[in-house]
Structures are given as structure tokens and as C-alpha cells.
């Protein structure tokens, strides 16, 4: 018997496509925000509210990922937001290939924030890079404060964590400290924003952080174009 060393990432094919997406987004001046959360945590609501705050400053577009239906895409389209719906069938996450197909359908003629609403799931989306700039995890007070302990891998990838439905925080007896300790046990504390899509609380602070990230990225791509 001969033993051959391989040491190759099994998700390499996805990583390769994610890199290609990243190049595409960079060349087109697109900041990509991958929004991950449990079903019903408020991904669609948060994306809508964020676009409301930022739409005068940036062009925004959305890719909706759901196993089935066009419900979320229709909500976006009704408000005039450019949107592509991906139906994954029985897949519980989006992958780089799906994003490559969907992103080719937009025209990016000005700097754009592209929100990707991943499939509602706290497990598998964390394994698949899409070519995003930022990974955002939305927790909601209704799902309880123990999720970072139970689903650490999604929090490992979070560049920012949002706690949504803070209007229900007290009714849910959501223990903020236990939640934050859980995130801090996974990785150095990322920026954290408490928001309510119902009352609008906290959305400005979050949107401000996001626009600062945009400015950084867009300045980089402008620099790159100028330096060519």
C-alpha cells in the first residue's frame, strides 16, 4: 500500500468560485453583505430598514436565498429595489456558484451595496464563502440568548452581530450579558448593534457603521482604478 499525502480542502471548488466572485464585485464597485440568521430572525426586515436609511447615499440591491417561494423578493421588488431570488430547492445554504449566476443579472453602474439574504439557518451557511466583504449575523431576542454557545460556527464568521427585536427584549427575558459572553467565547468581540425593525431603534448606529465600511471599500476600488 502506498500513502499519498493530499491535504486538500474539500470545499476548494466553492472557495475558487468565491474568489472569482470577489474579483467581479471589486471590479464593479460592489460591497457585498452576507446576512445570516435563523429563520424569522428578521433578515428581510433588517435589509429593508437598512436600505431605507442608506438609499439616498448608495445604490442597493438584494439577492434573496430561500429554499422555496418568492415572498421576500416580492417585498423588495414592491419597493423598487433590484432583486434576484434564488430558490435552493432542498439546500440549506447559498453557495458561490449560485451567487455567480445571480449577480450576473444585475447592472452595477454605480457603487452598490449588495445584500445577500442567506437561507434561514445557523449551521450550513457558515461553511460556504460567497465572495462577500462582510458577514453579518442577526440574532433575535425571540430565539433566546444561548445561541452563540449552541451554534458557534456562524458566530465565528461574524464581522458584526445584530440583536434584533429588542422591543421584545424584556418580554423574552433576553439576557444580554449571557449572549455577549457567548459571542466573546467564540471570537474577539465584533461590533454589536441592538436594533428593532419594529420601532426603528438602533438602526442609525448600525447603518452608520455599514456606510463607514462602504466608504473604505469604495475608496479602495477607486484607488485601484486610479492607480492603474
Amino acid at each position, binding site marked *: 500500500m502506498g500513502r499519498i499525502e493530499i491535504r486538500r480542502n474539500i470545499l476548494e471548488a466553492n472557495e475558487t468560485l468565491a474568489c472569482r466572485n470577489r474579483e467581479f464585485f471589486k471590479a464593479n464597485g460592489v460591497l457585498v453583505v452576507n446576512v445570516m440568521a435563523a429563520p424569522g430572525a428578521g433578515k428581510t426586515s433588517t435589509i429593508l430598514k437598512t436600505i431605507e436609511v442608506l438609499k439616498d447615499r448608495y445604490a442597493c440591491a438584494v439577492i434573496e436565498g430561500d429554499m422555496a417561494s418568492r415572498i421576500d423578493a416580492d417585498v423588495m421588488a414592491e419597493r423598487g429595489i433590484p432583486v434576484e431570488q434564488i430558490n435552493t430547492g432542498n439546500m440549506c445554504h447559498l453557495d458561490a456558484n449560485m451567487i455567480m449566476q445571480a449577480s450576473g443579472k444585475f447592472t452595477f453602474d454605480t457603487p452598490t451595496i449588495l445584500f445577500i439574504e442567506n437561507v434561514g439557518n445557523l449551521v450550513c451557511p457558515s461553511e460556504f464563502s460567497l465572495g462577500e466583504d462582510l458577514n453579518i449575523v442577526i440574532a433575535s431576542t425571540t430565539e433566546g440568548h444561548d445561541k452563540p454557545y449552541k451554534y458557534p*460556527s456562524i458566530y*465565528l464568521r461574524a464581522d458584526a452581530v445584530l440583536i434584533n427585536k429588542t422591543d421584545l427584549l424584556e418580554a423574552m427575558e433576553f439576557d444580554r450579558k449571557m449572549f455577549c459572553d457567548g459571542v466573546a467565547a467564540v471570537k474577539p468581540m465584533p461590533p454589536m448593534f441592538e436594533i428593532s425593525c419594529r420601532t426603528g431603534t438602533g438602526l442609525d448606529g448600525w447603518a452608520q457603521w455599514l456606510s463607514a465600511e462602504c466608504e473604505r471599500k469604495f475608496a479602495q476600488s477607486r484607488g485601484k482604478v486610479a492607480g492603474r
Partner: protein
Amino acid sequence: MTAITLVIGDLTSIVDDSVQFYFQIMTKDTVLEDAVLQFKRIAPEFVCKACGQLFSGRHIGMNCPRCGGKSIIADKGQEFYIESIEVDDGAD
């Protein structure tokens, strides 16, 4: 006989039994039909934020066994790769 060694971290969502199950379906009637999958699981490693002690364990937020301090995930537990393949090379 062929043997394939996979390394899988406990922080990934990859389950040995599922990999085995789909591997069998996908390799049926191919040269890999009789290949054996060997799984090496890697437990996550934590580092104490107070004293720097490294320790492995199963649960997020475990306190340091040396000083009781708070811990954070170090870098192990996220592996998912093919380590090696053993093939019959006719040498013995």
C-alpha cells in the same frame, strides 16, 4: 483496497455518517466502490483569556482548567480536508 483519510473539525457541520452515506451512493459501480473512509475528528481548542492556557474541550464558554478564566476558541476545530489516500501500488 483504497483508504481515504478525512480530517473534520468538530466546529464544522460535517457529520461522518452522512459523508459515509453519500460516499457510498456516489461511488457505487466506480473504482472507489470498495474504498474505505477513515475519519479523524479534531476537537476545538480553547485558549484562556486570562493566563493563555490552551486546552481542548467540547463546550463553548468553558472556563480555564488552570485558573478558571474565560476562554475563547483558538484555531482548531474548523478543518475539513482530505489528508491522504492509501492505494495499492503493487509494492507489497
